[in-house]
């Protein structure tokens, strides 16, 4: 085999085609370039490449030089020179191995082979449709920016970058997933985030051994501290302004290609009960809403268990009139208090799940059935008592005050545990449950930060910042 034939185009083409199993969307285009009419070959994957960009940046510059001499006679040098001065794509480099070239090919880049050249030029020509930027459905705000992340990593990084126009914002790209090769961006502000924290995050992502990473949850579960815990120790958000705030606090954000949910570390319980909208509202209102949220959190966790516990063990604690009306409402109800509450809770959870899954067009039908049939008729038929419905409804409404979906889910599960404890041991059982919960919460950490951070290792300044929304003018004064 002569040297000249070692990099013969047909062989190179064959090699790539075989590696891709002659996949039908692999496109190869042969052409001749320059006065010398040297054979060259372009390869790309259909649909991953924006054909217009390909034509503008690669094809037409190459083909419009039939009368010009090639920059060099040595094919390898010629290829490099082509990348440098002929191809007008934003990025074009020469790689030496087929593996690297294929990795780029899979990202929507175009490969350029020149007959006899050792290297392979990779040209940035990706272009695929991405969803437009819309309001984040999981966290809507009344006041505040309305853009949400989309599935494209580049767009997402740009959304954050656009908000912090600082040279100190760092974006480190990593790849995870042995099959999916998902791009992951770790974002931080280098003079605010502690370097060891950033290193820890990167090393944790580096340890991810998965075939595919289709959603940030894959990463979240693998990098979170105390993974057995029900509580989320990684924050997730769909809002770029939220991520910008997180970066400015010196925390680290992780953006995963293909998922509109960005992750952030460290994350404590207090972070999960905060929303970015707190900062967009007037400080008294925001403080009030924040307290309301804390109350909602406790209500969500404890209301049904307190109902069951008080009625089965301590009816003397119920005020006489209330006891009288609960007793009358429960007359003829065939289920004991516990069963009734669990039934209603389960019904609600089923309704919630159904309403997420079902097509939008029949959504109203389900809500009518849910509200009327279960609410009205069950009470009128005497199957469920109205206090139980009130308790379950209040709990359900309270559960939506928790801004974090993952925390809300955790509390939902713990609620059932609390109800069971209450049914066996009354208020005493609830206290035991709360103690266990407290022990657990104080024992877990998120990236070195205690999970109950400003509360449990008490830090006055941060504590005040969590309980109250400190008005900006007060913060301004402190800076001076």
């Amino acid at each position, binding site marked *: 085999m002569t040297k000249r034939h070692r990099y013969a185009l047909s062989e190179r083409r064959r090699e790539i085609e075989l590696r891709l199993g002659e996949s039908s969307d692999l496109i190869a285009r042969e052409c001749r370039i320059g006065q010398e009419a040297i054979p060259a070959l372009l390869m790309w994957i259909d649909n991953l490449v924006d054909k217009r960009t390909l034509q503008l940046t690669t094809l037409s510059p190459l083909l419009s030089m039939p009368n010009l001499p090639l920059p060099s006679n040595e094919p390898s040098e010629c290829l490099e020179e082509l990348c440098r001065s002929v191809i007008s794509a934003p990025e074009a480099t020469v790689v030496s191995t087929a593996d690297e070239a294929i990795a780029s090919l899979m990202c929507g880049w175009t490969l350029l082979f020149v007959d006899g050249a050792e290297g392979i030029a990779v040209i940035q020509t990706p272009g695929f449709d991405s969803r437009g930027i819309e309001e984040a459905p999981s966290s809507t705000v009344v006041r505040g920016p309305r853009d949400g992340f989309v599935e494209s990593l580049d767009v997402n990084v740009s959304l954050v970058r656009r908000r912090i126009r600082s040279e100190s914002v760092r974006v480190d790209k990593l790849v995870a997933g042995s099959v999916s090769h998902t791009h992951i961006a770790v974002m931080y502000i280098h003079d605010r985030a502690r370097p060891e924290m950033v290193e820890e995050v990167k090393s944790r992502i580096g340890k991810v051994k998965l075939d595919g990473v289709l959603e940030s949850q894959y990463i979240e579960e693998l990098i979170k501290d105390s993974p057995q815990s029900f509580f989320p120790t990684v924050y997730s958000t769909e809002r770029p302004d939220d991520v910008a705030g997180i970066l400015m606090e010196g925390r680290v954000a992780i953006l995963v290609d293909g998922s509109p949910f960005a992750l952030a570390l460290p994350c404590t319980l207090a972070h999960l009960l905060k929303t970015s909208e707190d900062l967009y509202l007037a400080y008294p209102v925001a403080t009030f809403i924040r307290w309301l949220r804390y109350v909602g959190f406790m209500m969500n966790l404890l209301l049904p268990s307190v109902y069951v516990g008080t*009625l*089965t*063990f301590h*009816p*003397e604690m119920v005020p*006489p*009139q209330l*006891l*009288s*009306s609960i*007793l*009358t*409402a*429960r*007359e003829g*109800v065939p289920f*004991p*208090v516990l069963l009734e509450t669990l039934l209603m809770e389960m019904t609600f959870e089923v309704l919630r799940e159904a309403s997420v899954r079902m097509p939008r067009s029949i959504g109203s039908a389900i809500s009518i059935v849910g509200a009327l049939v279960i609410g009205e008729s069950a009470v009128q038929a005497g199957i469920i008592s109205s206090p139980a419905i009130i308790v379950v409804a209040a709990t359900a409404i309270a559960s939506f005050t928790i801004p974090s979906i993952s925390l809300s889910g955790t509390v939902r599960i713990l609620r059932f545990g609390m109800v069971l404890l209450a049914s*066996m*041991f*009354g208020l*005493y*059982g609830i206290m*035991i449950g709360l103690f*266990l919960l407290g022990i657990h919460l104080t024992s877990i950490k998120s990236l070195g930060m205690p999970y109950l951070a400003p509360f449990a290792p008490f830090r006055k300044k941060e504590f005040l910042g969590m309980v109250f929304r400190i008005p900006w003018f007060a913060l301004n004064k402190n800076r001076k």
Partner: protein
Amino acid sequence: MKAVKAGICLLAVMLISGCWGQINFDQLTVVSAIGLDPAKNNMIRVTLQLSNPTLPVAAGGGSQQRRPFVNYDAVGVTIQEAVERIQHQAKKSLFFPQTKVVLISEQFARRGLDDTLDYFWRETNQNLNSWVLVSRMPARHVLDKAMELEPVPADEWRKYLEGDWKRPLQIDVQMYQFLPRLNQTGYQAVSPGIGPFNKSGKSDIMEIGDTAVFKNDRMIGWLSGEESQIVNWLTGASRHGSFHTDLAKEESVSFNLNSVRAKLTPVLSGGRLSMQVRVKGEAEVLTATVPLHFGSEHAMLRDVLNRQLTTAIEKTIDKVFRQFGSDVIGFGETLHRRMPAEWKKRKPDWDEELRGLNADISVSFEVKRSGLLH
């Protein structure tokens, strides 16, 4: 293994505590009143008023066709025994922790309570916040015949006794205050009375008023409304009230009294104990049957009020100490606090001490307002 150990520890924490007491909620019937009557052979007749839970009127409970309450009674050697008998009649599980009132019939109170009220000391499922009333007729009849605006009479009584707006014409007492005072020489028990106001056959209107005075566990007499009011001031239970003075023959002025403060001080002079009573307060003219000139007759009004109040207080103290020989004012406890050694010495024959006690009373009320008229 670790998890198993942790589980065992947790289970132990739960089970060892003894916090077991699941209540059959659906079988629960609230006992709203307990009545205690004497029965033959030194037995006790216990009457329980069980209230039927009703929906509030706002929730459409107004048109319910069922009895709001039912009374059950049984006789037993102890209250416990009688309650167990009632349990067989009522079938439902009796729920004591929300009992509103405990009625003790006068006859029974005069016989002596101590042995029977032991039930209330020991029973865990009861309401120590229930109000104690002494009924002038058998408690069972009061419970059977009482007719109030509220469907369950005990509810109405509790609301009245809890309320602050009423005139302090009886001395309200709750079970937790009543029980220890039955044995407290220095601060004897009292209880408001209840009885039919006018008997009209099947159902009667019940009146709460006057005060039953106990000497140890035995009731010995009644205090009228006026006297109860004065005892209320002296014990500090009430700060307000009203008083009628006789200005001349068939002419009287009524005062509303506010911010009444009474101070009892034991004074020891030459081995003789006496009691100093200082009463201060503000008065407001409510009604007068004679035309008054507030400016010029102000001093006169004040003097008449103070003089007549002094007499009234003297009479009340005299009645309580000399006639009943019962320290319902709590002077013994005042002495106990001020001069513990002296109290120790005098406690054994405190009755005798009370009978010979000299009370030095001074009353200073200021007439501050005269209503809308000047």
